[in-house]
């Protein structure tokens, strides 16, 4: 792990995105790599840049500062202080933990990320207030607010992770493409508004080069309710694409079609969606945050709700899709166990979980769902997936995963 972190530390500063693709992700990447912007725009990413013998510097080359011990050499007392500082005052001043741990450069980057997040939140919030949530400007305003909160949250979690020595866990991403994964599972829904509570789930995942296709189904065992979904994605950056990043970072254009039949409630919903989804390997931020990652997805969806009552017809609607996540890699590819785990926020409210409601106080009707997800492969073939989501309903899912075919 240390060798990998060091290799990353000597790479040219990264930028994930070429002109125009994924403005938010690009903004993050550019902030992490100011040198890239100075160099006249977009740097070559990851391994490609390293292969060309890019000069050292950038993201992690100036870690620590003179006399500061590297993260791995931080003593237990200082480590405890750093973790404490990452929480208080770190909740407000992101990077405080890294600063105490002797990682001032990483601390500055985390603080910058926090400020960018707050800036986005403030800009989106100001737009919402100034326009009174105008129908003409809602989508960008809400998108900025949610993405800003995401950046704020990710920079804080990254500070805690790095301050706690999370990089020492040695997690690494699996960069191989696996042709087929099959999945069978069980989902429990604590849902007071509907009769269902138990679902059988099945999914498959096919990866071919830069393309991924994922059909999935959730069939209620105790009610007349079925959800079918087909995900497809084209990877533009990252492993398997024509522009590998050399780490877990990636950028995809993802689409999906979903049909959800609520037989007991006499309606069905069909949804089509398109989103730009990216992952940033946080090894690019600092060696202390190696082994973790952040994700952001932004997109739009259209849906048709078809009512079965005579004369009710169908309603057409659209949705803003915004999702952010922070996670860690578990183990190393080829090791005894390997996978990843993440916590996330998803702004959409059309899933089985729906959106969360905070009870008394503000927030009802705006907030989406929170979730935690983990997948762990126990050897090259078998794995297990677990998910928890809290929205209007509370969901728990476990699934057994079987991997077919060798990695590519």
């Amino acid at each position: 792990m240390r060798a990998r972190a060091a290799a990353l530390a000597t790479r040219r500063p990264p930028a994930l995105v070429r002109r125009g693709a994924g403005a938010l992700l690009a903004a993050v990447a550019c902030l992490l790599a100011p040198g890239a912007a100075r160099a006249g725009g977009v740097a070559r990413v990851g391994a490609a840049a390293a292969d060309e013998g890019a000069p050292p510097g950038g993201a992690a080359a100036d870690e620590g500062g003179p006399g500061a011990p590297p993260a791995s050499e931080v003593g237990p007392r200082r480590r405890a202080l750093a973790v404490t500082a990452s929480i208080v005052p770190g909740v407000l001043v992101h990077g405080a933990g890294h600063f105490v741990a002797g990682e001032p450069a990483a601390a500055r980057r985390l603080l910058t990320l926090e400020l960018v997040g707050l800036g986005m939140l403030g800009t989106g919030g100001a737009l919402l207030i100034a326009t009174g949530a105008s129908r003409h400007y809602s989508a960008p305003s809400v998108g900025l607010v949610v993405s800003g909160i995401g950046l704020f949250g990710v920079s804080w979690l990254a500070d805690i992770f790095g301050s706690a020595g999370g990089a020492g866990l040695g997690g690494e991403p699996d960069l191989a493409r696996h042709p087929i994964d099959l999945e069978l599972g069980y989902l429990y829904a604590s849902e007071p508004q509907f009769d269902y509570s138990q679902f059988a789930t099945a999914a498959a995942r096919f990866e071919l080069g830069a393309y991924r296709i994922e059909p999935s189904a959730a069939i209620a065992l105790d009610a007349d309710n079925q959800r079918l979904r087909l995900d497809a994605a084209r990877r533009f950056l990252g492993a398997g694409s024509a522009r590998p990043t050399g780490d877990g970072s990636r950028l995809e254009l993802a689409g999906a079609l979903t049909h959800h039949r609520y037989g007991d409630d006499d309606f069905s919903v069909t949804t089509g969606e398109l989103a730009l989804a990216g992952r940033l390997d946080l090894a690019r931020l600092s060696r202390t945050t190696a082994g973790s990652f952040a994700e952001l997805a932004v997109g739009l969806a259209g849906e048709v709700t078809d009512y079965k009552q005579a004369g009710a017809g169908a309603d057409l609607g659209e949705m803003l899709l915004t999702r952010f996540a922070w996670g860690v890699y578990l183990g190393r590819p080829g090791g005894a166990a390997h996978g990843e785990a993440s916590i996330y926020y998803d702004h959409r409210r059309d899933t089985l979980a729906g959106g969360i409601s905070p009870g008394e106080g503000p927030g009802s009707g705006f907030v989406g769902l929170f979730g935690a997800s983990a997948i762990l492969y126990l050897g090259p073939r078998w794995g297990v997936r677990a998910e928890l989501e809290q929205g209007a309903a509370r969901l728990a899912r476990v699934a057994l995963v079987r991997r077919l075919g060798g990695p590519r």
Partner: protein
Amino acid sequence: MRRAAAALGAAAALGAAALPACVRPADERALEDLEVGIASAAGLSIAVDGGAAQVRVIEEGRIDLWAQAPVLGATVRAEPAAAGALRLSVANCMPGSELDARDAAGDALPVAPLPGSRPTSCRFELDLPPGEEIELAIAPPDAGDIARFRFAAMGDIQTGLPEVGDLFRRINAEPELRFVVSTGDLVEDGQVEEYELLLERLALLDIPYYSTIGNHELHGETGMWIELLGRRNVHFRFKGVAFSLVDSGNASLDPIVYDWLDGWLDRAAGDVHVFGTHFPPIDPVGARAGSFRSRKEAAKLLSRLAAGAVDLTLYGHIHSYYSYENAGIPAYISGGGGALPEKLDGIGRHFLTIDVDPQAGIGAVGVVRVD
């Protein structure tokens, strides 16, 4: 790796455990509705049918109510020591309402109407016999006539509360309006002073104001609503038309409220039925999503309303005016009570006037601009 997985698992479990209220945030509010209109003190007891009025004062010889429906029924009883003269005051009352009081044998008791301080203040005096249950009916004389009438709809006063008197005076200027139905968000922060100001402003209206709550009534002093105004889920009938105003303050209806709604829909089968709630189940501007917390619940509600042949849906929360259809039912968003307005929409403070004919259905829906 194990440490990381354990930490994430613990964080997720803690998060899930810390959110027990999230799945049913409104169940306690629904149960509180069941206590509205029931009170006893000083040898007097009263139970208002369906909780359609809150008992503000009950003391020796006096009962004060706040009405949440144009027609009230109640049972009142006086213990022997408390028998005798009773002064009954009904605030937020239909102007010109009359009190009919009958003893256990069905015989009418003498009732003396007293002058009210304003059109929506109805006051009566009657003698209660000892230990006997007396049935009261308070209604305007034409309440039972199945005939066309007009009402107003509005919502979202919030920060506009100090100036809402302009809007109420404009409502008073519409002579045919019988009452106002409101979709909530009458206060901004739910502070006591705001509720006091709200009552002052409502006193400017010449017709009663029936409302459910919005999300802003869940800020601050959340008990004030029920204490002052009564139920958060309101159902009544007037001149053959059913009205259901339900609490979606959490961008959701509690299952208890769905059960009530099912009953109201069943009882109103074949009749004109007006449904109102604060959050639009689905925001016509989907990307904004100022709507229910769950799209599937929104569809479920609309599916039920369609199955129940609801004729009109009224919403607030969005501080503008929208006219559209959901599940084939005409829908109006009217959030022009004075809250921070949606810009660039060409409309400011406003309210709706709605003609309804119990036999022909919903008639003209007008928009009255105040600014």
